[in-house]
């Protein structure tokens, strides 16, 4: 019995120290799932790039339920993973309680900027600036002067997207109509393409001919229906132009992949604090490739690039939804 005990003790110590010595990074995907062709997939892309370049490995988990958030965080921290990269605003609460228990572990929180902990690298993206640019493009591409926005779960972050988009649309065409819909109020709204499709059809029947989807997996349904009905759509987070070549006007890029890649590259020496990734840092932008080259004319490109520069220089100020939880250009 004592022999057994000491053997097991030794094994446990070995396992623990092995975990600590490896210190491989970990990545926790949000409920949308690793292959949402959007937000989480961008993170996966960044992690893959890190793994290919360094030959390292990383641990990962796709959350299936709210209750797993804290569990997954603690498991990775216990196993010695460092840094632990988390995706999405909903990790803020579990992070704030877990991070303090593991002061030697570095955490990365994407889309969280308001926590007060010394060992969290918090990265916020200026989604409103990127959305502003694609909003301009939408207004220029629209023939009916009506454009649409379909959000996933109704949270301030998604309103932030929609608000920037509407400001971009109005900057080009003050008379344009922006129709905005949210898919739902529960996390299921990130994964309901059927509802996304119906919302798209509803917006099309109201005259929209360019629709911007900021809805995770639901957006797949939006882009599909837009392509079926022969109107333009705008993808989000990852470059989604390739999903329906010639039918996706552009994608609002949110370089989650860069953020994840850099965090993993820095490893344990990760700098913590709050970081903003806007147009100037190339954290957000719009996608241009072979699939949408025919849709984006020179005039459009020139206008958007000029606006981009003006935003960086501070000549154009894109109002953030977070500033006072309301939007000057769009009523939700």
């Amino acid at each position, binding site marked *: 019995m004592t022999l057994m005990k000491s053997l097991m003790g030794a094994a446990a110590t070995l396992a623990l120290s092995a975990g600590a010595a490896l210190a491989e990074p970990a990545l926790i995907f949000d409920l949308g799932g690793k292959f949402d062709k959007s937000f989480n997939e961008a993170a996966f892309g960044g992690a893959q790039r890190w793994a290919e370049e360094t030959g390292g490995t990383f641990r990962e988990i796709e959350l299936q339920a709210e209750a797993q958030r804290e569990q997954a965080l603690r498991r990775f921290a216990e196993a010695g993973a460092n840094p632990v990269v988390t995706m999405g605003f909903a990790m803020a609460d579990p992070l704030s309680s877990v991070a303090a228990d593991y002061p030697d572990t570095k955490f990365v929180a994407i889309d969280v900027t308001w926590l007060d902990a010394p060992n969290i690298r918090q990265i916020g993206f200026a989604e409103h600036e990127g959305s502003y640019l694609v909003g301009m493009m939408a207004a220029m591409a629209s023939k009916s002067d009506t454009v649409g926005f379909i959000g996933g779960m109704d949270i301030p972050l998604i309103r932030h997207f929609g608000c920037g988009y509407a400001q971009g649309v109005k900057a080009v065409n003050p008379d344009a109509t922006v129709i905005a819909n949210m898919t739902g109020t529960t996390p299921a709204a990130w994964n309901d393409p059927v509802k996304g499709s119906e*919302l798209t059809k509803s917006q099309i029947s*109201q*005259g929209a001919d360019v629709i911007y989807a900021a809805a995770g997996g639901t957006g797949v349904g939006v882009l599909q229906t837009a392509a079926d009905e022969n109107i333009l759509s705008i993808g989000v987070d990852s470059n989604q132009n390739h999903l329906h070549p010639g039918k996706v006007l552009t994608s609002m890029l949110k370089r989650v992949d860069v953020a994840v890649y850099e965090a993993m590259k820095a490893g344990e020496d990760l700098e913590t604090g709050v970081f903003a990734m806007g147009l100037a840092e190339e954290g957000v932008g719009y996608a241009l490739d072979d699939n949408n080259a025919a849709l984006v004319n020179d005039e459009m490109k020139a206008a958007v690039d000029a606006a981009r520069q003006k935003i960086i220089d501070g000549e154009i100020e894109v109002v953030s939804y977070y500033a006072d939880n309301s939007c000057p250009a769009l009523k939700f």
Partner: protein
Amino acid sequence: MDFLTLIQVLDSTVRLATPLLLACLAGLFSERAGIFDIGLEGKMLMAAFFSAAIAASTGNVWLGLLAGVGSSLMLAALHGVASITFRGNQLISGVAINFLAAGLTVLIAQDWFKQGGRTPSLLSGGRFEGLEWPFAIGPQDAEATGQPVSQLMKAANPVQQVYSELISGHSVLVYLAFLAVPATWWILYRTRFGLRLRAVGENPAAVDTAGVSVVGLRFAAVAICGLLCGIAGAYLATALQAGFVKDMTAGRGFIALAALIFAKWRPWQAMGACLLFGLLQAVALRFQNIELGPIVVPVQVMDALPYILTVVILAGFVGKAIPPRAGGEPYVKER
């Protein structure tokens, strides 16, 4: 709200009510024969996955439909064996089927397509596309005149609007679902098989005394249930959508059960209930928050209404919902 908007909401209603209607009729056959079926959701999900998977790998949507129906029939057979042959608890068997389907679909999809539990997007040919009826306004007219369909629709007269928007342009499965309603009514109330099926749900001992196989009838009912759930799942994945994503049924099997209770286990009323629930969803999608004078009705209320209505019915405020008498009880020849 103008006339065209109303028509568009009704059009959306038809699309959203179709999977509910098919699943509701499936439940009707099963429950009228005395086999409660909580597993509608699971069967639909399984069918949605296999129809999308086969349609994606063969490029033929009809093979997809066949595979979807086949997989749903397999689960129905499982339910039948558990609850008829082995006289197990029907509710537990149904719940097990739901869990099985939710897990298996994602697992197989991940192993097969390596896309995180989804199937690749289906291209045309791998999907049921809308049938444009003759003289209806469709994409061809839009190309011919150079105007978008929504503009043409606005300019058309009301009859043409109803015809083009509401009647034409659905996939073949939608028409099939609505034809299934009179068919169900006819089978249940005008055929010998239907009479026996209803009898076996009320008083199986009497049916047995008459020399008709209770087990055979119940298996037939469960098989019809599997068939209809299979079509419902295939409709979700290959007609409404272009591919499978995890948990894509999103509770529709349970709403169908609610509709079945709401309709008090009768086919025409089932259609009414499904259309009503579909309408609620369509209205919730079209008008997010509804302003009724000073009160704003939030969109969540609309989403919850099907369940609230069912509870109201069950509580006996609007008549009584009495399930088939022998429902939920395995038949034992001699006690």
